[in-house]
């Protein structure tokens, strides 16, 4: 990345401003303001205001009209947890053992819990044991977005990803009551002590906010596929199988997800609720 004179001066200027702001802020003893800014210092916040996030390369970003995922359940290797591990590592999801305070973006459920009401006692043997990957469905009509009183959760217009603004969330948990898939987690306590190894590329959260899968919006912006999909490709390749998680543009007739949807019988979770999920299952 070439830094020309003009750009150098701009960055240097802002940095100076930031550096100067820090002692000024300290002198005013406004630590509480730093905390209000979500754990950043005043100077850091000023820098962020004028600075593009690192790693953002316009032109290289993966874009779509409507991102969707197909879960080909039979390709899921036994006992494999690669998708969850990758996702939670990349997104600084804390590892809290108490199920009451647990935070999870993607995880495995049994068939009867993934598709409640669909189970019956004479069901195919493999369905009883197969783990089903569940995550936020990035609904076309997301109830969580409908109920949020601050627009802290919103559907991105460009590609339909249902996202969270952790800095705006007031922690009312209305979205958790509204989500018919149990996809949302709340930070019942400070999550940071429960993160084994922090990924500096992605923010950690504070206590008191809701979080969930973001379809790796931050990776798509850098031209990378979602972490779970990437991990799944590697894990299934070792077993000589096709990947269980496939990601792509639902509006592109040639995309891999559309090809799979064309050639397989697929189901979605609770379609009768009209949420129009963007995660499909090949059972």
């Amino acid at each position, binding site marked *: 990345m070439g830094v020309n004179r003009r750009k150098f001066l701009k960055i240097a200027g802002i940095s100076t401003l930031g550096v100067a702001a820090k002692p000024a802020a300290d002198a005013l003893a406004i630590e509480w303001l730093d905390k209000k800014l979500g754990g950043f210092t005043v100077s850091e916040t000023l820098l962020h205001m004028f600075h593009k996030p690192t790693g953002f390369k316009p032109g290289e970003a993966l874009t779509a009209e409507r991102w969707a995922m197909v879960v080909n359940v039979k390709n899921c290797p036994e006992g494999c947890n690669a998708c969850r591990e990758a996702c939670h590592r990349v997104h600084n999801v804390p590892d809290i053992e108490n199920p009451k305070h647990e935070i999870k973006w993607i995880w495995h459920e049994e068939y009867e819990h993934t598709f409640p009401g669909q189970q019956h006692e004479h069901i195919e043997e493999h369905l009883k044991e197969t783990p089903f990957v569940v995550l936020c469905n990035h609904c076309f009509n997301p109830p969580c977005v409908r109920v949020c009183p601050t627009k802290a959760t919103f559907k991105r217009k460009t590609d339909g990803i249902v996202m969270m603004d952790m800095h705006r969330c007031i922690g009312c948990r209305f979205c958790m009551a*509204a989500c018919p898939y149990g996809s949302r987690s709340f930070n019942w306590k400070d999550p940071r002590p429960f993160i084994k190894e922090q990924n500096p590329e992605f923010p950690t959260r504070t206590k008191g906010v809701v979080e969930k899968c973001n379809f790796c919006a931050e990776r798509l912006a850098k031209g990378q596929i979602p972490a779970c999909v990437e991990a799944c490709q590697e894990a299934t390749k070792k077993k000589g199988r096709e990947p269980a998680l496939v990601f792509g543009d639902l509006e592109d007739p040639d995309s891999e997800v559309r090809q799979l949807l064309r050639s397989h019988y697929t189901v979605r979770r609770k379609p009768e609720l009209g949420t129009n999920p963007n995660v499909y299952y090949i059972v």
Partner: protein
Amino acid sequence: MLEKGFLGGRKYWIWMACLLLFMGAGFISWLFQFREGLGITGMSRDISWGVYIANFTFLVGVAAAAVMVVLPYYVHHYKAFGRITILAEFLGVAAVTMCLLFILVDLGNPVRALNVILHPTPNSILFWDMVVLNGYLFLNIFIGWNVLTAERKGSPPPGWLKPFIYLSIPWAISIHTVTAFLYAGLPGRHFWLTAIMAARFLSSAFAAGPAMLILFCFIVRKTTKFNPGNEQIRTLSGIVTYAMILNVFFFLLECFTAFYSNIPGHMHTIVYLFRGLHGHTGLVPWMWVSAFFAVVSLVLLIVPAARRADDVLAVACVSVFIACWIDKGVGLVIGGFIPNPLEHITEYVATVPEVLITLGVWATGFFILSFLYKIAITVKEELRA
């Protein structure tokens, strides 16, 4: 007029000091919660609303119940209620204040509460609930204060106050309707997804609210020189009777639809509440206590001779309060989360700090109520003297 709230006897101050003690304990517990996060409560990923929102929901009803006194007096010119409208309106003020406090203590990020106003979101029912609750608080303080000021001067309430009074009637209905909509519009929560929710909320509100008002009338009559009046209490007890009958009737309607249709999702929560589901029976004793008191209250209220005896009426009103509080708070709010959307069952038990915070909010409400009642009753006593 405000100074009259400070001119109380020894008993008044002992009572207020007791309330302050609970408020203090609640506040300290809240500071602990503020530092540690909501993890100190019994709430969880599956039961994401607990006793705070349960009490909030119940108290919105109590607040709305003021309309049961205001409407007969101002619309139907039922003169007897003129004596107690101020008691109903001030009960509304205290109840809405508690509602707002319960919302505040339930927030994961209370310092960001103003985001609801800074980023107004009309598609969110919670946004509208904020609007109607604050509006109702304003209306009741404004109307109550002006009516009392006029009464003190021996004049009727000023004419320009009438539009506000008439506005407060549909507004009272709106606060509980909007609160019901918080629940009744969520897909995938079968127990809440029912068109009759707002009607159920209103019926239980018009039972529990006036029941509380009757109890307060008894206390006022015993502890002060002001008598709210026998006819007033009789009429209120009639309102409680009809509302409680409707409340139980509406609940039975829910049971019919769930069990005759035999749709599992519609039955699960009711079964969980009254019999337990897959061995989980945490709320079963609560619900049977609620059912027991509902039946007791109905018997005592419906039999005219029983209802007309003050002592029996007091027992009936306490029964209504217990039945409605458990049904609406514990059963409706917490039950609605069980089973969770993936049909797992997590149960909920409130923790000690959570209960202390809850008691602190109730104490704050009673503190405000006692202060306002002291003012209103002193004015009324002076007029009589």
